């Protein structure tokens, strides 16, 4: 009996030890693009916790988080959709859903995960629990700019067709509405944090096109048509990304295409308010969460540099060279640090955003996208 009691106590103790909860609120993942792995990172510890392998071709990969910040849905270039449990650090599910994919989104209620595909062109929607496909929406061409919108909707755009489609999953059968004439060769899109405005950047013409998703019948709104007029167009060696508005309060900042500048737009009127010349073709122009500074990285061959622009003066106030191939930046949710992936140096660098001091280097293999779990609670991310 004594032995039994001892065993019981031991078991209880073991269970308590195992049940030590893992808080995921300050964790994140870094895509290691060349090795098909992700690195689990801890923001507060400024450290890597684990590497999870076996995720396929992760060039140009991205991910979204479940509302409870436990699962990441990772979208690989090879069409792989992987559900990763960051508490157990195990792959919880994986499907190869297409031949060539370009990103994804999770619905506002966290129940649906959508992936946009180049081949076969279109969007496929999966049950977030089981990864069973619940809808296949062929668009007939390469599909870009997929975001979630409030009301269990997904919005996405065709590179060749210049059409934006809204897929509404409020009821069992998705309702699709199509908006033509968004412009020539939309290359990416984003949605504002309040879920109201969807904007596509255009490669085939100077300008952007917005949709007001609060409207019952959204119509294309031209933004900055012909912004490059009269200027020599420069070659674009890497398409800019429009992930998340660089929202500075009353204005938005966007990378120009074929011009070495960022464009400032009034958030209300969508009219140009200013432009800031930059070091190269901007790839990401990202506002620090408080909106005071905008950090910009650049396309090949000028991709070793970061510029920081002050929102009030719209001047570059800082320029530095973290290293070869700066691919992505992710701010901590309150903006006190920025984490920067420097692909060819095989490190993620952590900077203080007030002092610009480098705080830490974390080894990573060919790092690209950095994603903190706080994204789980943001529309469009």
């Amino acid at each position, binding site marked *: 009996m004594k032995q039994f009691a001892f065993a019981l106590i031991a078991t209880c103790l073991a269970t308590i030890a195992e049940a030590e909860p893992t808080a995921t609120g300050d964790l994140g993942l870094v895509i290691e693009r060349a090795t098909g792995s992700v690195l689990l990172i801890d923001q507060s510890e400024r450290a890597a916790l684990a590497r999870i392998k076996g995720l396929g*071709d992760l*060039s140009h990969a991205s991910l979204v988080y479940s509302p409870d910040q436990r699962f990441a849905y990772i979208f690989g270039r090879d069409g792989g959709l992987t559900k990763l449990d960051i508490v157990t650090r195990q792959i919880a599910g994986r499907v190869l859903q297409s031949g*060539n994919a*370009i990103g994804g989104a999770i619905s506002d209620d966290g129940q649906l995960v959508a992936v946009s595909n180049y081949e076969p062109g279109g969007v496929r929607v999966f049950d977030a629990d089981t990864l069973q496909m619940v809808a296949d929406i062929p668009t007939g061409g390469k599909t870009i700019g997929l975001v979630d919108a409030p009301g269990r909707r997904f919005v996405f755009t065709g590179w060749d067709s210049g059409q934006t489609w809204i897929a509404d999953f409020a009821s069992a059968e998705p309702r699709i509405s199509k908006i033509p004439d968004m412009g020539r060769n939309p290359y990416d899109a984003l949605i504002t944090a309040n879920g109201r405005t969807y904007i596509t950047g255009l490669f085939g013409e100077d300008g952007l096109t917005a949709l007001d998703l609060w409207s019952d019948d959204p119509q294309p709104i031209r933004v900055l048509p012909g912004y490059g007029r009269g200027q020599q167009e420069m070659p*674009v*060696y890497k398409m800019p990304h429009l992930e998340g508005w660089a929202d500075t309060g009353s204005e938005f900042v966007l990378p120009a295409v074929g011009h070495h500048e960022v464009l400032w737009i009034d958030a209300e009127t969508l009219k140009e308010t200013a432009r800031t010349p930059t070091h190269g073709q901007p790839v990401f122009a990202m506002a620090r969460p408080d909106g005071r500074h905008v950090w910009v990285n650049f396309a090949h061959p000028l991709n070793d540099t970061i510029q920081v622009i002050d929102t009030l003066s719209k001047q570059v106030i800082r320029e530095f060279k973290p290293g070869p191939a700066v691919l992505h930046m992710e701010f901590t949710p309150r903006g006190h640090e920025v984490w920067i992936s420097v692909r060819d140096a095989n490190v993620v660098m952590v900077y203080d955003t007030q002092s610009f001091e480098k705080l830490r280097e974390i080894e990573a293999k060919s790092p690209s996208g950095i994603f903190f779990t706080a994204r789980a609670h943001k529309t469009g991310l």
Partner: protein
Amino acid sequence: MADLARISRIGRLTRALLVTCALVATSAFAAETIDPGALKRLVHQDCGSCHGLTLKGGLGPDLRAQNLQHYDLGVLKGVILDGIPDTAMPGWRPLMSEEEAEWVARYLLEPVQ
């Protein structure tokens, strides 16, 4: 007949000699200017921005060798250097020499180098 055979032998010799000279010249030249490691990296990482790290295509088309065989070397080199108008393919002339573009074209057509 003997003369003809001799001429053809001389011809072969001359050709062989010329080829050898050309090879020596090319490799001597290449040794100075071509960095295959850097160019391979450029192909997969930077061309890969649009064409995919494995070159199987993305926003830009599939560049794997089996899908490029309809291109001859010169045309492919031209596309690399000057791009394709009205598409997203930029000209890389500002960033690479003719010799480097030719190396890249060759590498795309025959990746084992």
